């Protein structure tokens, strides 16, 4: 969604950058921990009501069956509803492919720029911020135009299946935060020493990237992958315009055709799933300190 999905790029990068930073010294703040102050309690209560309210309302709605009774029927219907199930599978496929492509495309490029072509840093920052300037609806308009005017072979190759039609475009939408994540990750390790050591021991570039660099920037990679997955599962504008039935598109359609309960049930589950992804990320980030290879060298 929005400056958001691609966009929040800058924001996501902020979130990810934070993961990589050394914890700030906390003197001075500790002393204030005793009694919670009124201004803090007020905003926490307001936020809890404001944000949890609608989500609880969603959960309540998903537990009401068509008959009016309460039950978990809407949740079991997710599995038995063929249309929803196949849309879910499509979206998971898209997310999987996009996540792999994000890592395979961005990590080697970031390493290359950092190591051999530092003068391209500004160019990379400029290019990867572009998806923020071009809203998803506009990318969709361009793709729709392309779809209607492209030669047959290109349509077959690119647009005929939602998986090829969307995965690669979502990688572009994910660039603002994936680039920043990899860049922060690579900056935090002693890249040159690691690469020199690996190369002088006879490793190929491929081995160096996959077996030496990748494990050292785990957190950055996971951050980029999780946010890419979240983006792919949530993106609805481009898929709607291009008439692909992905999960969110099917959720809207199902909700309008009498399956609102099932549709809300799945949307609740997807919220929880993405929350789980990001929540686990916050622990992985903390674990990372101290076991970095670069520290050992």
């Amino acid at each position: 969604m929005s400056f958001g999905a691609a966009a929040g790029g800058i924001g996501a990068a902020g979130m990810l950058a934070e993961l990589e930073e050394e914890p700030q010294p906390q003197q001075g703040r500790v002393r204030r921990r005793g009694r919670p102050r009124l201004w803090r309690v007020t905003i926490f209560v307001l936020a809890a009501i404001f944000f949890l309210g609608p989500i609880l309302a969603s959960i309540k709605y998903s537990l009401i069956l068509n008959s009016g009774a309460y039950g978990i029927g809407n949740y079991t219907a997710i599995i038995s509803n063929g249309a929803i199930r196949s849309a879910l599978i499509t979206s998971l496929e898209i997310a999987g492919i996009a996540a792999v492509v994000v890592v395979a495309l961005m990590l080697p490029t970031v390493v290359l720029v950092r190591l051999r072509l530092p003068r391209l840093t500004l160019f990379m920052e400029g290019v990867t911020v572009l998806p923020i300037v071009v809203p998803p609806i506009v990318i969709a308009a361009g793709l729709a135009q392309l779809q209607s005017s492209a030669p047959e072979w290109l349509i077959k190759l690119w647009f005929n299946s939602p998986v090829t039609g969307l995965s690669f475009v979502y990688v572009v939408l994910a660039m603002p935060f994936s680039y920043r994540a990899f860049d922060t990750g690579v900056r935090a390790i002693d890249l040159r020493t690691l690469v020199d050591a690996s190369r002088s021991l006879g490793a190929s570039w491929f081995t160096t990237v996959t077996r030496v660099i990748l494990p050292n920037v785990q957190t950055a990679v996971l951050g980029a992958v999780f946010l890419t997955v979240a983006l792919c599962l949530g993106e609805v504008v481009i898929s709607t315009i291009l008439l692909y039935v992905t999960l969110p598109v099917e959720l809207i359609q199902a909700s309008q055709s009498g399956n609102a309960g099932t549709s809300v049930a799945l949307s609740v589950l997807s919220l929880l799933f993405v929350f789980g992804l990001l929540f686990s990320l916050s622990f992985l980030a903390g674990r990372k300190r101290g076991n970095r290879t670069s520290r050992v060298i």
Partner: protein
Amino acid sequence: MRVSAGGGAWIGMLPFSVYVLVFLGLPIYEVIRGALSTTSGAFTFENFKTIFSGSQYWIPLENSVILSAWTAVVGAIFGTWLAAAVVASPAGSMLRRMVSSGSGVLAYFAGVPLAFAFIAALGRAPGGVVTTLLKHIGFDLYAHGFSITSLLGVGLAYTYFQVPMMVILITPALEGLRPQWQEAAESLGASRLEYLRHIAIPVMAPAFIGSLLILFGNAFSAYATALALVGASIPLIPAAINEAINGNVLVNQAGIAQALGVEMILIAAIVLTFYWLVQRRARRWLQ
């Protein structure tokens, strides 16, 4: 040891460059070309003339700008307040992890599920839980002109991702406020209010304004939530593009959609330029 950039290094840039050209450059090129073409492909400015004459395309633009502005201001204020409260709690605490992950979910993912949650809470009674509750205590939202499919309703839904986005954007800057600055101010006799007024607020101002601009752009290009709540009939720019794409081909509606797309790109680019200018100032303090 410094390795010079040989030919090999430049070849390594090929995959990324080609990828970006195909999957981002090509759609942008199509939008610009389409905006400047008639249905038969001849060069024209007619599409731009159409979108800038008459109220049909001015009203969505105006609505989009107003909606983005007020949701950005509301999001920035409450987001900063929430982020400040979170930053004051110890790093690594459960509360902090919950708020940070929750913000990520709402800011990056929530489009359709958010719209559903919003309908479940504020939809017309007896559907909406909150609407029904309010009706029980004697306040009928819908009798007072509220509707979740109105611009106000959609704007309210937008604050559900604007506030979390602000939390994500402003947290690093708030963490950059050194406790030592407050201690120094206090030991020089400043009250809490004086510390805020003379130190915290001036130092935070560039980061705050920068984030405000991002929030504006965020709402301006957002469409997922509005699409799920209302569809194409809401008078906002992205919806106007959606309608034009699916509309009548005879009057070159596709060209109109592309011209509106170019308009959106230009506005987003202006906002982002201001963001960069502000950001350069912000970096001076928060190193």
